[in-house]
């Protein structure tokens, strides 16, 4: 043994070092912070890894669709429709799907804020905020009535009741509560009041209508209850011949609803009324021999005094088309004529609504497809005159306290109304907004409300429907439901407001008895189980007692039957047609990432406004798509990129509803807002921008990619692919497949947003959209016609991974990252993918997207991520999986229950939310499944069939009845 001191590391030295290192490790600060807290008592109902569903209702628009919220480990991850709800019937629109992003919006207020002396909003405590509000209310009440105003969205339920009680306690008059619904078809209400004596909106039921005529009523996008109306329309589709429900679109611009239409009567802006008068004339013309309702008959002389040629000239279309429409409506009863929508809401829209109502009456539609007596009367939007009165009161300094409850006057009303200046004159503006909107910029006190998914309330969107809103998860931040704030502030007043408690839950409970009595016909002996069942179901639904049919006051109709004004001769100005899109609605919630990321179905533009100009107009102005044009009206001037589209008349220009449109719109002086017809001058600025467009070429270039069928040719041509040298691939158990009925598809994009939500599809932003790097797995391919400059023939093709039997992507992948499973799925294995991108090159459908960079899910939007789906990293390919996680979930459920999978057990996110049920998913191995039956339909075709990839998706061709 050598000398121990010579050794590199002796025993002692080793122990010394080891001891020191151990001690150092023990002292490291990291060691103390990590602590695992076992879940000793697990929360009730929550099983990790299993979804838990809650029923609630959607508050994104006033339709009131039921919602089934899927939660995982205590957080909502996906919203789906409530299949039991009579309005949505399980479907949600794009905005309803995106509502969850406003729950997790990164900009949501974390607590109450007060504007300090420096002008910045600073956090305060709830007690302070409520005290301040109570003091201000008390001071304002002392000054007399009208000093306190409330501007709210339509609240037909418990929240509205709380608001009214509060306002009363605060000494306000009923008219001090103003209900702002910018897209409310107020002219229809006014016309109903004038002609029928009922100031309410009819509920439209298209399920009986054989022909539907929409005079600018964009029922696919935003009109009244889009999910319900689109479904009812589509339920009469998908068949050939006379039984098919037809739709005609009347307006200067082909809206998305018009794409679903069989006929576009392209009248000039403001000419809708002349078309309607022409239809009425056609019906009342004694020469035609058409039978019309007796009550309308006395009006015949007033209508027949207008010469057809004159009406046609005022409408800007040829007379035969109008006359043919009248004859068709006479032959195909009942029908439904809908007006007005934003695109036909010109200054004389009340007259349009009145004439259309007369046509409905003449054809006997009222009571069958256009039903009065279903308005719950719980709440009604204020007229534009009332809104203007409020603004002028604000501007005159007559108001001390203005409460804004989910009403954003700066972001949803025309700037010409002068709301900004008026708000500046109000000493205390209180906003209950969830996150910053234009109006919170003027607010002095921000009292952030709960999101609807965190709140308790009830809604009565119409008689017979009570939707119950309940929290699906604990609030994310220190927010308080606005009703609760109002009740708490009310309790601080002297005398206190008559609220039995300050808990919104109690309000809903207290109102439940009334709902249960209405639903059951009698008060239930024990309310608790009844209400509990209703909460589980999502609401109370019942057949309301029929109201007596209102009678026409023929004398009142006379003023509406005058000849519409003629277009000014030689006017060079275009008519501005402001249209809401299905993604952005009236502007509230338009900043949600999914809704900005998903391209508009018609223009394929995302992240940017655009001005639709016809090719002739664009030529005249010397602009192309992407050129920035200056748009000016009497009210203002904005610069937007042009989008050249043959879907707009030469004398009109279309602009999506948004800040740009609001800057241009006139203030108006009538009882309703004016969205359409403002004269606008468009000039080229010489600037150019890269418009974020999804489309490459909007033409089919003779390739017959999206065939249509007629009764004479009921099947699209299909190639003969019987010759093959290869054995048929074997799918032992299932072969997952899809059928998409293009006769039902409206291009509403609900499926696209649902796919984003279900599959963690990232939002990449406007630059990525400009670069062609949109990540959506699903896209609406829209073709405008066969060749550039040819006839307009819009066809939609919903494009997603076709899960081909001979997938061209599969053999070219060098690492088997994409392959064909035994269930027929074309799967993509993200962690095996090296990113050669050959699969995309070889995909004839170009449905694969590549992660060019790492996606960002800004906190807390990441809480929405579906834990069953991998978040993809950069460098890998991804695409539609047919929602494989939902397939596995359904398979596991069936196995747990010891039964085989049944048809309909597996529903992909897109099929689940499709308002028109155009998408059907199922097992093609089961010959009785719906998807198998639809695939065998005569209208079925496969996309790019000649490539012989043998896709699993069968498209059912759109029916196009050619006019004789």
């Amino acid at each position, binding site marked *: 043994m050598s000398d121990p001191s010579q050794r590199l590391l002796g025993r002692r030295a080793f122990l010394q070092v080891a001891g020191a290192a151990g001690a150092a490790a023990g002292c490291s600060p990291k060691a103390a912070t990590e602590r695992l807290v076992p879940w000793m008592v697990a929360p009730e109902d929550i099983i990790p890894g299993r979804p838990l569903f809650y029923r609630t209702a959607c508050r994104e628009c006033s339709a009131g669709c039921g919602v089934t919220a899927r939660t995982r480990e205590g957080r909502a991850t996906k919203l789906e429709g409530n299949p039991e709800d009579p309005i949505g019937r399980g479907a949600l629109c794009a905005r309803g799907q995106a509502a969850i992003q406003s729950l997790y919006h990164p900009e949501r207020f974390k607590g109450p804020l007060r504007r300090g002396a420096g002008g910045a909003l600073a956090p305060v405590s709830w007690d302070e905020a409520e005290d301040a509000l109570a003091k201000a209310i008390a001071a304002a009440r002392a000054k007399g009535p009208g000093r306190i105003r409330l501007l709210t969205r339509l609240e037909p339920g418990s929240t509205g009741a709380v608001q009214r009680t509060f306002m009363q306690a605060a000494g306000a008059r009923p008219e001090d509560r103003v209900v702002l619904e910018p897209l409310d078809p107020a002219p229809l209400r006014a016309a109903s009041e004038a002609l029928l004596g009922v100031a309410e909106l009819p509920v439209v039921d298209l399920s009986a209508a054989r022909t539907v005529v929409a005079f600018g009523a964009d029922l696919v996008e935003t009109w009244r209850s889009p999910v319900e109306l689109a479904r009812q329309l589509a339920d009469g589709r998908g068949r050939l011949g006379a039984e098919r429900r037809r739709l005609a679109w009347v307006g200067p611009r082909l809206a998305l609803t018009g794409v679903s239409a069989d006929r576009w009567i392209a009248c000039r802006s403001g000419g809708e009324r002349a078309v309607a008068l022409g239809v009425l004339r056609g019906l009342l013309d004694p020469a035609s021999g058409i039978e019309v309702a007796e009550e309308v008959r006395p009006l015949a002389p007033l209508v027949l005094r207008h010469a057809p040629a004159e009406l046609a000239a005022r409408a800007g279309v040829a007379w035969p088309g109008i006359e043919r429409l009248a004859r068709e409506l006479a032959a195909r009863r009942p029908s439904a004529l809908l007006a007005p929508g934003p695109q036909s809401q010109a200054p004389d829209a009340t007259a349009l609504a009145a004439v259309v109502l007369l046509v409905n009456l003449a054809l006997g539609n009222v009571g069958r497809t256009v039903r009065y007596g279903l308005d719950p009367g719980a709440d009604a939007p204020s007229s534009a005159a009332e809104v203007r009165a409020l603004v002028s009161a604000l501007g005159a300094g007559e108001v001390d306290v203005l409460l804004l409850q989910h009403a954003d006057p700066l972001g949803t009303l025309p700037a010409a109304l002068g709301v900004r200046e008026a708000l500046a004159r109000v000493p205390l503006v209180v906003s209950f907004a969830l996150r910053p909107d234009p109006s919170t910029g003027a607010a002095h006190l921000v009292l952030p409300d709960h999101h609807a998914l965190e709140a308790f309330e009830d809604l009565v969107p119409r008689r017979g429907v009570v939707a119950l809103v309940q929290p699906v998860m604990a609030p994310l931040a220190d927010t308080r439901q606005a009703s609760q704030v109002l009740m708490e502030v009310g309790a601080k007043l002297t005398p206190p407001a008559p609220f039995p408690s300050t808990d919104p839950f109690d309000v809903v409970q207290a109102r439940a008895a009334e709902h249960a009595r209405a639903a059951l016909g009698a008060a239930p002996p024990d309310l608790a189980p009844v209400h509990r069942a209703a909460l589980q179901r999502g609401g109370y639904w019942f057949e309301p007692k029929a109201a007596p049919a209102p009678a026409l006051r023929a004398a009142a109709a006379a003023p509406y039957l005058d000849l519409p004004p003629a277009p000014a001769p030689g006017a060079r100005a275009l008519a501005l047609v402001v249209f809401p899109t299905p993604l952005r609605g009236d502007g509230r919630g338009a900043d949600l990432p999914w809704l900005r990321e998903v391209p508009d179905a018609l223009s394929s533009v995302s992240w940017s406004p655009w001005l639709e100009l016809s090719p002739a107009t664009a030529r005249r102005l010397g602009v192309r798509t992407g050129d920035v044009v200056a748009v000016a009206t009497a009210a203002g001037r904005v610069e937007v990129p042009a989008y050249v589209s043959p879907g707009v008349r030469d004398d009109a220009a279309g602009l999506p509803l948004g800040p740009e449109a609001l800057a241009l719109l006139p203030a108006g002086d009538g009882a309703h807002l004016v969205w359409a017809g403002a004269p606008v001058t468009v000039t080229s600025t010489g600037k150019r921008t890269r418009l974020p467009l999804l489309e490459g070429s909007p033409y089919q270039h003779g390739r017959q990619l999206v065939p249509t069928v007629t009764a004479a040719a009921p099947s699209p041509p299909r190639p003969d692919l019987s010759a093959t040298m290869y054995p048929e691939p074997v799918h032992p158990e299932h072969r997952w497949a899809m059928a998409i009925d293009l006769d039902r598809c409206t291009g509403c994009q609900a499926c696209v947003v649902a796919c984003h939500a279900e599959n963690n599809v990232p939002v990449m932003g406007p630059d990525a959209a400009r670069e062609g790097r949109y990540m959506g797995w699903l896209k609406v391919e829209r073709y405008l016609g066969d060749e550039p400059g040819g006839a307009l023939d819009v066809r939609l093709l919903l494009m997603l991974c076709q899960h081909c039997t001979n997938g061209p992507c599969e053999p070219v992948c060098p690492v088997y990252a994409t392959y064909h499973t035994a269930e027929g799925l074309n799967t993509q294995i993200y962690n095996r993918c090296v990113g050669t991108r050959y699969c995309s090159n*070889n995909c004839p459908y170009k449905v694969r997207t*590549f992660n060019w960079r790492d996606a960002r899910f800004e906190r807390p939007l990441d809480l929405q991520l579906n834990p069953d789906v991998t978040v993809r990293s950069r460098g890998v390919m991804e695409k539609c999986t047919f929602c494989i996680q939902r397939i596995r979930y359904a398979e596991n459920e069936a196995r747990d229950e010891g039964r085989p999978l049944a048809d309909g057990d597996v529903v992909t996110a897109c099929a689940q939310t499709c308002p028109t049920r155009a998408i059907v998913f199922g097992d093609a191995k089961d010959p009785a499944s719906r998807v198998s039956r639809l695939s065998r339909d005569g209208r079925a075709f496969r996309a790019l069939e000649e490539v012989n990839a043998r896709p699993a998706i069968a498209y059912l061709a759109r029916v196009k009845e050619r006019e004789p």
Partner: protein
Amino acid sequence: MTASDSFRSIEETVRATHGRPGLAYWLGLALAGGLAAFGGWAYSLIVRTGLHWTGLQRPGMWGNLITDFVFWVGIAHSGTLISAILYLFRARFRTAVYRVAEMMTVFAVMTAGLYPILHLGRPWFAYWLFPYPNQRELWMNFRSPLIWDVFAVSTYLIVSTVFLLVGVAPDAAALRGRATGWRRRLYSFLAFGWHGTDEQWRHYTRAYLFFAAFATPLVVSVHSVVSWDFAVSVLPGWHSTLFPPYFVAGAILSGVAMVITILVPLRRAFRLEDLITPRHLDMLARLVILTGLIVTYSYATEILLAAQEPASDPERSTFLYRMTGPYAPVFWTMIACNCGGPILLLSRRVRRSTPALLVICVAINVGMWLERFNIVVTSLSHDRLPFDWRVYVPTWVEWAVTFGAFGWFFFLFLVGLKLLPPVSIAELKEEAAHLAAHAGAEEASRGR
């Protein structure tokens, strides 16, 4: 001049190329190295944050980098053609030029081989494309042309490197004698114990013949495999049975043009005019004409076949798009360079003019790069669904990587020139001896 005199002069001339480099060499090396470093830095952007630096998008998922890959694989082809096939055919003129061609081959394959890795979304997993046993029991997909590529390119790299080194062994031995220091060690290594014994010569000629025979099919197969990257797809403009012969001809065209592009300045700079004579250049130029005409024929065939289709056919549409769409300048420049250039060379006067030959060969190199761009990019951006059509424009990062590759190639080449004999000493000597023997025999017969 006796045989030994000429042997000495050959050796001297070749050794002179290895002399102390001049300023021009250093400048060239610095330029090439700088370009390569800049390209490498640009590429590091892609590795660090993703391929969003490129102009790629759906549907154009391949662009400049794949164009570069095909281009460099093509360049690599002429080396083996000149050294192996022409060796088997006993084409004398190859002797003077084949070493440069072989060096070019190896360095071009080394350049090309980078691209399949560079263009991956996750290049750090490039090794997954190789068959290696792993505990996850994952294997590659032998049906994928990209796997065929991996094998083709790696085989080609190995074979061409071995072929180059076998040829270098006798020359390294010749240079070893006068070399000192690290050069001596290098040549000793490269000589592989060569002493010039009869037995070694016998083995050497056998081995050389064997490698030539072994490499010959690769000339055809490697670029055929590369063409299958496109031909086996279903994309209009790619899906064509014409591609393998068309690609091989194009590869040889671009390769020979590149050899000429390099030889013309090289023989000037290193005073090799005596060894690489105008006759050698003329023979190479004739090779350019032959392959250029094959390429022209292929273009015509493709276009005529597409033109027969009905107007709605995607194939026809793609070809019309190439000729008239946003990429039309690329298409017509390609036609001018690759069809016009070789046709100009048909004139003996043009062919014999070294500057004209150089200009035409550079133009052919540009044209052949554009040809690959034309194939890769235009087909992708004009696929079957018009809704997806989009125009791809390379970004500065892709151009940096493209030009960086030229820097990398010329950097390797310049270093190689100073280390390896740019012409084959042994074969030149053999030829000189052969000539001398002939001359002696003739003199003897005349004297008789």
